[in-house]
């Protein structure tokens, strides 16, 4: 029971946080320079792990697709399967969870450290709105890069699957590409970008919220970082279903 109450009060605190964040962002001039700094940092930091993960998810999709369809006598459907699963679902949700793990946890721990070292109070004393100064550039930055990262991930995933289909599974490479092109529509890529936008907002706001309300001490920073990544991953997974239902259902 007390768990439910504390959950509800957290939700309420999050609502308050978002409301005052929106008000702060709308009443202040946009921090253009810091936005590009954040976008650069988030993009460059997340790119290497994203490439590694996308390549290996792509290879895995090809191997599993081959196994699954072999029993139905449809080895030739690997391209269809990889393109459909990869572009529509795997790439957006994977990018979201890796960016939550890399950039989201970093946002949470940076802001939490600022909170416990009273730097956020110092900002307020200097009459700088901390939400506008800390959260707005991070949100705009992640919104700028996440759709791009998703497209890079789609490309590397398909490339890796194509290489595995030819080299490991011995399929016809041209046929694979033709199947990919047949099943994929332009709007699928657009929907992927839409999903990425929504995930970006969730990851940034959730991570910044947990950092901003961090408990005291080093253990508090650890706890804030921990909650940030778990809550953003779970919320992204649930929203992913709702968006798939709306966009493709």
């Amino acid at each position, binding site marked *: 029971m007390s768990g439910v109450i504390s959950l509800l009060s957290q939700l309420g605190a999050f609502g308050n946080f978002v409301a005052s964040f929106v008000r702060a962002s709308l009443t202040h001039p946009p921090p253009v320079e810091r936005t590009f700094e954040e976008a650069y940092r988030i993009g460059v930091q997340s790119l290497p792990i994203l490439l590694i*993960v996308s390549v290996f998810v792509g290879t895995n999709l090809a191997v599993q697709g081959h196994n699954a369809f072999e029993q139905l006598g449809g080895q030739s459907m690997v391209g269809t399967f990889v393109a459909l699963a990869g572009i529509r679902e795997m790439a957006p949700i994977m990018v979201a*969870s890796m960016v939550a793990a890399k950039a989201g946890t970093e946002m949470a721990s940076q802001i939490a450290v600022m909170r416990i070292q009273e730097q956020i109070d110092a900002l307020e004393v200097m009459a700088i709105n901390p939400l506008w100064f800390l959260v707005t550039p991070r949100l705009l930055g992640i919104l700028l890069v996440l759709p791009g990262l998703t497209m890079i991930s789609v490309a590397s995933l398909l490339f890796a699957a194509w290489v595995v289909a030819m080299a490991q599974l011995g399929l016809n490479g041209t046929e694979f590409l033709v199947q990919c092109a047949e099943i994929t529509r332009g709007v699928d890529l657009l929907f992927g970008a839409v999903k990425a936008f929504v995930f970006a907002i969730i990851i940034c706001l959730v991570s910044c919220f947990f950092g901003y309300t961090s408990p005291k001490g080093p*253990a508090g920073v650890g706890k804030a970082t921990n909650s940030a990544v778990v809550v953003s*991953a779970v919320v992204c997974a649930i929203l992913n279903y709702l968006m798939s239902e709306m966009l493709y*259902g």
Partner: protein
Amino acid sequence: MLQRLSTLGRFGAFSGQVLWRSVTPYWELDSTATHLWALWWRCLLPVLATTTPLGMVMALQGLQIFDLYGAQRLLSPLVSVATFRELSPVLASVLVAAQGGSSFAAELGAMKISEELDATEVMAIDPLRVHVVPRFLAVLIACPMLNLAGSLGGIFGGFVSAVVLKGETAGIYWANLWLMTRTSDLFGGFVKTFVFGAIIGLVACWFGTQAKGGAPGVGRAVNDTVVYACTTFIVVNYFLTSALFGAIG
């Protein structure tokens, strides 16, 4: 470059020490059980809350392919094979890394910062045995258990999406569920999560015990744990998939 190699070497030595201590007596059984219990309850809800929506997404997208061929009865075999082989092992492990691994890193990091680990050593008690090994063993055991829970969540999610929301026949879903799933798929998932659990445990305890520099150090340890653990086991996953299921077919 040289520094990275030496870090890798020290991580190797650390892993060796932890593994050796986990197979030789004595074991801190009470402590292990406490960690295991805490880990199980902390991770169960996040694991279910991500595998269930992904099972629903898979049924949603799978129905679209199978509708093309009029083979809706193949949906539940696809859901169960994909869940047991890939979805649940990988997702459950990502969530265990995000929730359990990062909280272990935060706890150990806070202990390291406040010199509790050094104090243990001064008292002639091996900190690896009392603090690290119980956590390592707890992750090792909890990961396969949570995988099983996640698999059931995924299959239930597929059922909700296909039968409750899309109006497929419930009997067809349940009757065909085990059409293509074999015991080897279940064991494959167990082997995978066992390996992933070992990776999470070692990486989390390594970054936790290496934390330095106050609260920011703890935040960084948590961040690094999630990123390195997830990246490593997604790469390892491909090789395990090829080894376990590539041979079986």
